[in-house]
């Protein structure tokens, strides 16, 4: 009779073998280059876009003052950036919640649906300092809204935890279509 072995042991052996055959680990420099945010690669472009977002903010402020819109609507200025074009837009925040250090955000773009992508890389830009905060992927849902779930730094959790969906958001957004999402 031939000896037999439990699946668990077999899998453990395979795991050990795979570990032993692992290729060299990626270098720190290589990993950092891969995660280098676009605003560090193209700082001038970021500065220009951040400047346009500030102008949009002012324009929305004036429009709000001129019109009789209800003050609880605070559109978030948005720049949609494609390879060859940049478009101004705004986002209406539909849901904003921070739980377990995770931001859950849902927003609707004012851009017409044919302009919208399946997914964007959303860069959060501080409203007060115009500096980049972080980026995350925004996925389009069936009804055309975009949702983001992202882990926040403890600093942002502390600052943003008390925000309500009706509050003026402390950020503006730069959206760049994610590869292959259109």
């Amino acid at each position, binding site marked *: 009779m*031939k*000896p*037999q*072995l*439990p*699946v*668990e042991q*077999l*899998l*453990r*052996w*395979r*795991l*050990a*073998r*795979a*570990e*032993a*055959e*692992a*290729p*060299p*680990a*990626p*270098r*720190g*420099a290589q*990993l*950092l280059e*891969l*995660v280098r945010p676009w605003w560090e690669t193209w700082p001038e472009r970021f500065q220009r876009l951040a400047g346009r977002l500030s102008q949009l903010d002012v324009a929305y402020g004036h429009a709000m003052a001129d019109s009789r819109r209800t003050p609880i609507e605070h559109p978030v200025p948005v720049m949609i950036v494609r390879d060859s074009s940049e478009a101004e837009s705004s986002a209406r925040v539909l849901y904003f919640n921070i739980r377990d*250090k995770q931001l859950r955000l849902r927003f609707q773009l004012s851009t017409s649906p044919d302009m919208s992508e399946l997914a964007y890389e959303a860069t959060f830009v501080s409203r007060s300092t115009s500096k980049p905060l*972080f*980026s995350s992927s925004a996925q389009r849902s069936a009804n055309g809204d975009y949702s983001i779930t*992202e*882990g*926040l*730094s*403890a*600093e942002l959790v*502390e600052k943003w935890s008390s925000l309500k969906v009706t509050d003026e958001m402390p950020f503006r957004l730069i959206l760049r279509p994610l590869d292959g999402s259109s």
Partner: protein
Amino acid sequence: MDEPESLRSKVAELMTAGAAARQRGEEIVAEQHFGEAFELAMKAANVLQPASNPARVDILHIATRLALECGDVAKAERIVDETDSMELSTAAREEWRRFRNKTEWPDAWLIAAVRRDPPNERALDILAERHWKALFGRCQLLTLNPHKANDLGQEAWCRVLRARRTLKPGGNLPAYLATVATNLWRDRNRSARRAGPLAEERLLALDAPLPDEQGQTVLGEVLPDLNALESHEQAMLAIDIDKAMERLSPRLRDVLVARYLIGESCAEIGERYGRTEQTISSWVRAGTREMRLYFEERDRAEEGNLTR
């Protein structure tokens, strides 16, 4: 005026508070405590003279540790450089040498150094190197392809680095990396599974209990000490295990890895999949049964070849 002893006692209190905060996962608070403790330690060191006064060297040692707890490698290195010119015992010299050699640093110091802006590249090198084999092994068992495993492992690292400010120096980095990689792999397969009605159908059929399977499942044709096999036999066995795993749907493969390699209970796996413990248990049995079938078929084929 603050006496060195009084400063030292405050440093000790802050260090304890910092360690407790880190344990609770309150990294900002931990860094604040360690940072304050560092400043006080340096103040105490400046009060104590001469430069090589043992009490001063001792408090500098504490300050260096505190700088590293905060991930401030430059500050730590400045202090270590200062001790180069001091007359120290061989044992003390060896202690200080450990501060220089980053490969001897615990994960907590390396993670703290990676959390900072800009992240310390050397610390990241060491962390990546230290945990790569385990991460790659896990990815290999999920993807069953070394190139895909390499990509998945690298992607997991990228995910972790993009949110590096949320990393916890007191946490379990290898487990976190493995979880991130597994989640990435699951996400990819989830969409593929949704797209493939056949795969879903197959999984639903596997919900049914398998009454003929009792207790621990064993595979035939395997020697007890696998490492005692000839190298070519080991290579063949690895291929066979991969082929057997390939027969499983990604979900069943995930369940077997979670159950046997991560050690999750069927109840824990069931919670993730929204299924009962019994269902997961039947999936585990179905997965092992499928693997066993592969080996049985292979044995029959080999026997057929021999008798031909």
